[in-house]
């Protein structure tokens, strides 16, 4: 339907909350070149958030939503966790159903939309925590990669089960003491980006969200490749400042530290992905 759906009936406009009116008048629709540079000027697609003050996940949300090339045709699937509290504030169709089934839900949605709208491009993007993506949902995550579902999966890795109060997850680093790991974690951080490559993803990135422009580029590339080729996976470090004892203004600092070590920028792409990215660059879309 496109962004026409955000047009408000003129007769009702005076009764609408300002944020809804702004969505029609000030958001960036119909412009695949939109990006993080719009952030200070355009109406954002996330209205507010209910994360802790300074939580890097909130920055990640804003960058990702500002970078979607086709928001008017984008469906976002999420899972349970700190992030799930943000989805109700997103001005797009989002789904929360269960904890860990996000890639299964997304598979059903993507395939059915392809069947119902053969002449349209509808992007399906999964956004979930590390517990959801790598622990409880690993089966659904990897199986969607094996099946070559044309969806983009983004993992918010805060290296902990944050929403349930700070328990060890598969993404916690070895030795870290958390709840349920009172002697420190006994095994290594799961190399999820490598599993994604081995499981058939065509574009895989591991990074922190310390650099908005870089996040924009990666999100666009991942979505364009998923559209045409197959599954893509982005693994983002979004530290849980609450559980590692940092202040609200220290998230960026923490990410910059890890930029140089375990979250050093890593990018993988298949030849088919390269071709898409090259073409999109030539078209001026990346």
């Amino acid at each position, binding site marked *: *339907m496109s962004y026409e*759906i*955000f047009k408000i009936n003129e007769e009702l406009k005076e009764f609408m909350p300002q944020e809804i009116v702004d969505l029609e008048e000030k958001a960036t629709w119909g412009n695949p070149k939109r990006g993080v540079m719009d952030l200070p000027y355009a109406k954002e697609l996330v209205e507010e958030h*209910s994360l802790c003050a300074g939580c890097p996940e909130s920055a990640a949300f804003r960058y990702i939503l500002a970078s979607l090339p086709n928001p*008017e*045709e*984008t*469906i976002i*699937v999420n899972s349970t966790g700190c992030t*799930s*509290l943000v*989805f*109700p*504030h*997103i*001005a*797009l*169709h*989002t*789904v*929360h*159903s*269960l904890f860990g*089934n996000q890639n*299964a*839900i*997304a*598979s*059903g*949605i*993507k*395939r*059915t*939309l*392809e*069947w*119902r*709208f053969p002449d349209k491009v*509808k992007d399906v993007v999964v956004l979930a925590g590390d517990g959801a993506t790598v622990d409880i949902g690993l*089966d*659904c995550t990897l*199986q969607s990669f094996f*099946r070559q579902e044309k969806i983009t999966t983004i993992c918010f890795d805060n290296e902990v089960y944050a929403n349930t109060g700070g328990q060890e997850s598969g993404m916690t680093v070895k030795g870290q003491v958390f709840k349920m790991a009172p002697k420190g974690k006994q095994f290594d951080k799961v190399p999820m980006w490598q599993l994604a490559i081995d499981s058939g993803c065509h574009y895989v990135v591991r990074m922190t969200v310390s650099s908005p422009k870089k996040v924009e580029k990666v999100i666009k590339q991942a979505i364009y490749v998923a559209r045409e080729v197959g599954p893509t996976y982005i693994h983002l470090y979004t530290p849980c400042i609450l559980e590692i004892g940092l202040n609200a203004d220290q998230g960026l600092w923490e990410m910059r530290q890890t930029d140089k070590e375990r979250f050093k920028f890593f990018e993988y792409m298949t030849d088919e992905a390269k071709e898409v990215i090259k073409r999109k660059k030539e078209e001026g879309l990346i």
Partner: protein
Amino acid sequence: MQETQQVQYNRAGQRVVSPDYLLFEAPREKQFMTGSEVVKEAVKRASVDASVSYPITPQSEAAHLIGELWVEGYVGVYFRGESEFGVMSEVAGCAMAGGRTITTTSGPGTLRAMENFPMWAGSRLPLQLVLMARGVNSPLTIQPDNLEISFLLDTGCMVWHAENAQELFEMILAGFVVAEQPDVHVPVITAIDGFFISHTREAVMLPPDDIALPPYDPYKAPMPPIDMEMAPGRFLRDPYVMKSNYISYASHTSWQFEVRSAIERSRPYAKHYLRGLIEEFGNPEAEVVLIASGTAGAQAKEAAIILSEDEGVPTRVIRLKTIRPFPGEEILQALRNAKYVFVPEFNVIGWLEREVRRVLYGKTDVPIVGSPRVAGGMTMPPEVIVKEVLKTLGKEAKHVI
């Protein structure tokens, strides 16, 4: 000038007809087929958009056959999922995206998928699950047993129970029609007793296969489909977990009541398309009443004939077609002059007896006997029911046993 009527076709090229025409008026032809094959015939005439499958006996064959329909162009989306948990989420995705969706499972598959069913109902998805009941693992069994139906009764899904392949055919078609009513819009589980129905061949009467149900219109749904074709709905923007306050608690409570009310609102539709929520069989004056559903209903009918004709004990049957909604009023009315109620079942816990007791409590003093019960693959010959009735009545068997 005479008005020309617009003939419509679905994406498979079948002529679209009204549910009433398809179910009640279209000419029918006799076929001899298994319950699994009947699933294929029903899905073929249901303008289905999507199906996802996973192997488990005894439902696998039905799922294979839906796959054939996909190859033949009658179903839009079809694939094998990774597990029943995955599959029930995948079909949820298909339904959320606005597709008419069906899947099938059995026993351990149902339990593996369990977390999904209340989510389907709470998301108001008019999904259909054809449940071919089998035992659950305590220990491993693949035999007929319908214990699992008990676990599904409080998920917020409608639960119907077919007696034979013919009724399964009607229920699959009616299931979509009822589940998709805007004032209902909750999932429907059409259950059969596995093997007895799925794997045995019987005569069924089928309408032609070049006609089909009208396609699903997701824009009539009480919840917007997840397709970015209409403005995001309020529900998407305000889940109850977001606010820890009394409004949130109250709205979550009322949402749960609303899902149950939606099942109640399905009554008139189910009554119409299933020709009643119950079937009464036998001499209406008989004082011995057998209440049963599924294949136990068929066995009860045989037993009622033996009891009435050979043993001199006039007996009748109240067979339930729907378990959710539960036809409590209908049962109460049908009981009339009953002196004894027996509830034969294919499971050890007696979920139907429990349901019957619940609705009859305080309304009648007729003794309710939760027996006989067979499970784990045992059959229930009518003689077992006859014996139980005669024993309770303190009578000697004159004939068969």
